[in-house]
């Protein structure tokens, strides 16, 4: 075949770098304008698309009842990609050109950390709805930021409480994507579990790259280590690929599979109508079938009616975000004075689809992090939400106050950064 030169090798390497860049994004005065930042493309696109639909549902519900203080809500959408630099650009344009009253959204934590800086500089309130890095509410906290979905600390704390009572879970193995989210989700859990159990042991860990297509070599290594529990911090398609590839090795008969932050997302249950094993221990930030309240049933049914599909967990976060802004404006009596809004929003209570009977989500002034109940379940046969044939069940529910970092812990984390 043709002989070719170093020039081609150079072009090839440039191209490789290029390709890797893809892998990983009425008049204004009367309306309350929310600038929404959601990715519509790439692997996180599903979360963005679901978030936009849910935000529209919330907006229509509020506007149908006459809006807030006589003003209608308007949301403008723009593909923010999952990319920090691009998200900053969109957020700045929203503020200077579209004169938005609020910023809302962002799926990627890296992008969230970038947008919170824009919010701080411009004193425009930013309501985070899906990104989960604890840093935004602790060491990178700024007063104009609020988050209305659970962060990774809360899922990890609930997971540690769940694992604490499993006396037979002694040998742990962890596998997760090799970036901030994958590591942080695990480290918080392992630190919290270590405080309560002295007899647990880490027998191995592996950190494949995010979106790794082939986990087979990892699976044989995990089997060889013979753990009691396999913790995974994968999300989305990576969980699907891992499970598919582990099935023929009968991995799920040999150890418990535990994914407590993103594993219980409906997109996973839906992706494997055949073959998803029973007894996987999973959770997510919102569940279609828990809590079984009228509000949650209505939310899921309305989403299905509007889009023809069931929502992934990001949707409920965006729905909460719009209601949070509306309620903040109603109580502050303004959408223009950021400091009055902060004062109102800091103490807001909001009944959300993911709140069980007798509990109402509320904002904590110290970190502007919403405080919510977390439920962890196991996969059980359930055909009420097709095409999924397994849903979560056998729930264990963890009280909101038991899974948040204490005020002292937050202050210590912030102090450590300032030094």
């Amino acid at each position, binding site marked *: *075949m043709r*002989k070719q030169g*170093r020039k081609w090798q150079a072009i090839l390497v440039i191209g490789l770098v290029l390709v890797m860049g893809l892998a990983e994004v009425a008049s204004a005065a009367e309306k309350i304008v929310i600038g929404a930042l959601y990715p519509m493309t790439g692997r996180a696109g599903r979360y963005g698309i679901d978030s936009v639909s849910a935000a529209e549902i919330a907006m229509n519900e509020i506007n149908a009842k006459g809006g807030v203080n006589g003003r209608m809500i308007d949301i403008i959408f723009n593909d923010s990609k999952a990319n920090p630099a691009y998200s900053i650009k969109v957020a700045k344009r929203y503020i200077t050109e579209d004169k938005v009253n609020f910023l809302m959204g962002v799926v990627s934590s890296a992008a969230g950390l970038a947008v919170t800086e824009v919010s701080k500089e411009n004193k425009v309130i930013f309501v985070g709805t899906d990104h989960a890095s604890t840093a935004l509410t602790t060491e990178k906290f700024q007063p104009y930021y609020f988050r209305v979905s659970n962060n990774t600390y809360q899922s990890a704390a609930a997971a540690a409480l769940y694992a604490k009572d499993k006396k037979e879970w002694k040998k742990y193995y962890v596998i997760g994507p*090799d970036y901030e989210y994958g590591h942080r989700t695990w480290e918080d859990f392992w630190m919290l579990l270590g405080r309560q159990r002295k007899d647990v042991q880490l027998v191995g860990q592996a950190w494949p790259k995010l979106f*790794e297509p082939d986990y087979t070599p990892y699976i044989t290594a995990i089997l060889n280590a013979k753990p009691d529990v396999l913790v995974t911090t994968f999300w989305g398609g990576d969980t699907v690929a891992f499970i*598919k*590839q582990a099935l*023929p090795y009968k991995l799920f008969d040999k150890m418990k599979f535990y994914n407590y932050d993103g594993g219980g997302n409906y997109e996973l249950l839906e992706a494997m109508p055949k073959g998803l094993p029973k007894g996987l221990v999973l959770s997510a930030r919102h569940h279609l079938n828990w809590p079984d309240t009228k509000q949650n049933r209505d939310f899921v049914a309305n989403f299905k009616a509007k889009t023809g*599909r069931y929502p992934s967990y990001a949707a409920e976060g965006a729905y909460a975000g719009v209601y949070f802004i509306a309620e903040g404006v109603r109580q502050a009596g303004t959408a223009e004075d950021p400091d009055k809004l902060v004062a109102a929003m800091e103490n807001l209570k909001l009944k959300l689809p993911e709140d069980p009977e007798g509990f109402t989500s509320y904002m904590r002034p110290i970190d502007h992090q919403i405080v919510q109940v977390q439920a962890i379940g196991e996969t059980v046969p359930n055909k009420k939400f097709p095409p999924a044939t397994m849903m979560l069940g056998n729930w264990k529910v963890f009280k909101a106050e038991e899974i948040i970092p204490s005020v002292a812990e937050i202050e210590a984390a912030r102090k450590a950064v300032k030094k």
Partner: protein
Amino acid sequence: MDGSLLVAQLISGLTSAMTLFLVASGLTLIFGVVNVFNFAHGSFYLLGAYFAYQVVAVSGVNFWAGVLLAALGAGAAGMLMEYFFLRRIYGRAGEAGFQILLTYSFILIIDDVVKMIWGTDYKSISKPEILSGPFSFGEVTMPRYDLVVIVIGLAVAFGMWAAIKKTRFGRNLRAISSNREMASSLGVNVPLTLSLVFGLATALGGLSGALSAPVRTVTPGAGIEVIIGSLIVVVIGGLGNFWGALVGALVIGEVTAFGILFLPQWAILFSYAVMALVLIFRPEGLLMKRGAVG
């Protein structure tokens, strides 16, 4: 650590290698004959996976017929891309730059088209029932399906070699590869051959995607991971060298598999480290003759 584990790891590395090889061999074939570096090659893997989903899971066709149809479909899409787009930039001054832009933009286009047609949720297809379980000999257990993938990969490697060496079509390929004008003046239908090569190569990418659909994530963007792996493979093996793609794929598959076994925290480093070493000490690739560079 016992022997059976080493064998199991060897086999899982071999499976990864074969999936990579099917994509990388097409990439290297296109480069060697058509002289185009097709960055969009991973997107034909993606198309193969979605075509297989459409034919097998939606229309209910037999699995193997579906895989074959998916490969043919990806090949047809590749020929369309070659005929309507790439053909316009052959021989243009600064062709390499146009190639990067054009093929790179096809990554984005194909991703978006896939998303428009099939949406963003993860798709699944089932393996044939008989292949869904494990296969055991002695202490070693592995998925039966993986075994089939290995056999298919080796069969394709042998078939391609035979086709290039022994058939009239293969002779034409080699002629075009060494001198396109000369081949043309000797009566080889060059444009047709180039289209066919492009179709064959993209069909191999599609075959890889279709075979991977039951065990991997079928989602827009899945082509990106594959093209990155294949680029590393062809850099290691030598661009344009068919056996280089096989050797490169085997090296990457096994280095990664054993890296995971011994140093799992560092696993993703290994394939890049091997590529860096090859670029430093043998920038023309392992299987290219020295002095071929220049």
